[in-house]
């Protein structure tokens, strides 16, 4: 089961602000999802390799060749705030 405290912890990690009611609601919803996974976890998987990716293709590696397709102006164009070509964000320390 997943309690309200766990929900609040997850919300904090995801930088989500949730109300008391929402915490209760999500606790019930996520609890259901988790209990379904508990059901799946009961299936015997002895000798089966964990699956990292569903595709069977071999690794695709890029050669180490520079391709500069965008300018700094373009890459910062959507920034809510900037200084020159630097992204400007609220203080972090």
């Amino acid at each position, binding site marked *: 089961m997943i309690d309200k405290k766990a929900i609040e912890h997850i919300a904090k*990690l995801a930088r989500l602000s949730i109300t008391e009611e929402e915490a209760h609601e999500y606790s019930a919803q996520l609890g259901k999802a988790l209990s379904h996974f508990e059901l799946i976890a009961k299936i015997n998987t002895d000798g089966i390799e964990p699956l990292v990716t569903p595709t069977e293709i071999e690794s*695709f*590696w*890029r050669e180490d060749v*520079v391709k500069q*397709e965008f300018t*700094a102006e373009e890459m910062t164009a959507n920034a809510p705030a900037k200084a020159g070509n*630097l992204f*400007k964000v609220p203080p972090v320390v």
Partner: protein
Amino acid sequence: MSYRGFEPVIGIEIHVQLSTKTKIFSADATTFDAADNENTSPISVGMPGSLPVVNRKAIEYSIKTGLALGCEIRRKSVFARKNYFYPDSPKGYQISQYDQPICEKGQIVFKVDGVEKVIGITRAHMEEDAGKSNHLGDYTLINYNRAGIPLLEIVSEPDIRTPAEAAEYGRTIHQIVRYLDVCDGNLEEGSLRCDCNVSVRKVGAAQFGTKVELKNINSFRFVEKAIEYEIERQIDAIERGEKIIQETRLWDPDKNRTFSMRTKEDAQDYRYFPDPDLLPVIVSDELVEKIRKDLPELPIARAKRFQTEHGLPESDALVLTTEKPLADFYEATAQESKNYKSSANWIMTELLRELNTTNKKIKDSPIRPEQLGKMIALIDKGTISGKIAKTVFQEMWQSGKEPETIIKEKGLVQVSDPAAIEKIVDEVLAANAQNVEDHKSGKKKNLLGFFVGAVMKASKGQANPDLVNKILLEKLK
């Protein structure tokens, strides 16, 4: 080594910036001096919908480093997302490797105060670097040029027991990655960064104490000083009956102390999971063997060979192998001169002194190893004396000319004609009759050195010193 009955336990994580031309998951350049956000793309600034594609070179460099550290190379390793919010990581997660890193279970060997030390390497995994934040009080400015530059994080076992060992471990890793040419090793630019985990426990205790992480130290001298300080700080706290708090501390080189970073209320919870945007890294046996075959001889092996095959003393072998270009220079010189010890001496004294005073790197030396080798061969052949060779060396350093040319132009050829030397000896003895008398009568102590000096001076340093000695001894009988 015991500190007031306590034993330090130290483990080190070193982030090595791999010197690829492009980032690990995008084709942005990795140049250090680029303008603000010039080296960015939708992938490196974390635009929704952008997809990472791994750089072959980053994988090859990681394997190369892993092999040099004696690691096993995982044939299938997996990229994972390490989730946390910080503006220098634009996606809200860092792509790293978690439970299946590319390199595991290695070890390195080095000497501290003449004693051999073996330190285990737990793992080395690939990850992307973060951007650079500039905190300016009311706001923070972010530059993503560094975001996505490939890093190999090398994690040691907690095998280190003293600050000096920790610093030497760092220096050894630094030396190895530079030998391999997978990292430029520029500490000022942050190409290699050390995090040190330090704890102390009562000598003989089986359990580790609570560890404190010292972050982002960019010099090995500071690694030593920071750990030294931290050991004393922890023991003081324990002796006062305090508990050590698991925290991250920073080293302040100006105040010579560590200080606590903002303590996090929550324990970190990175919720690692395999990155669905990236395929597992499948490495073939052929690729690993090809890279293994192309590995350069590493400093420790090379220093051993210089001792066993070239007969150099250990101290010379260690100095000459500090950097690969220097070791290469020595070997090329010795190949030409056929005189190992003399080549080592000329490089370690004359050449390194000139390089140091002019602040030049070995690759910028105006004297090529073949030229130095030829000059040493000319000494051994008796064409020039060791003393004259210093003049030739200076001239080569200034003009870059061949030693034979300089000797010819300046008329520096050594006089090895006995008759010519005898003539000079006679002149010197005639001019110093009283000294000759005193020498022969034994009135004054052995004056041979004085006469040799006088003859060499009279010949402008060009007389063959062995012949001068021989002729003088006969004349003074």
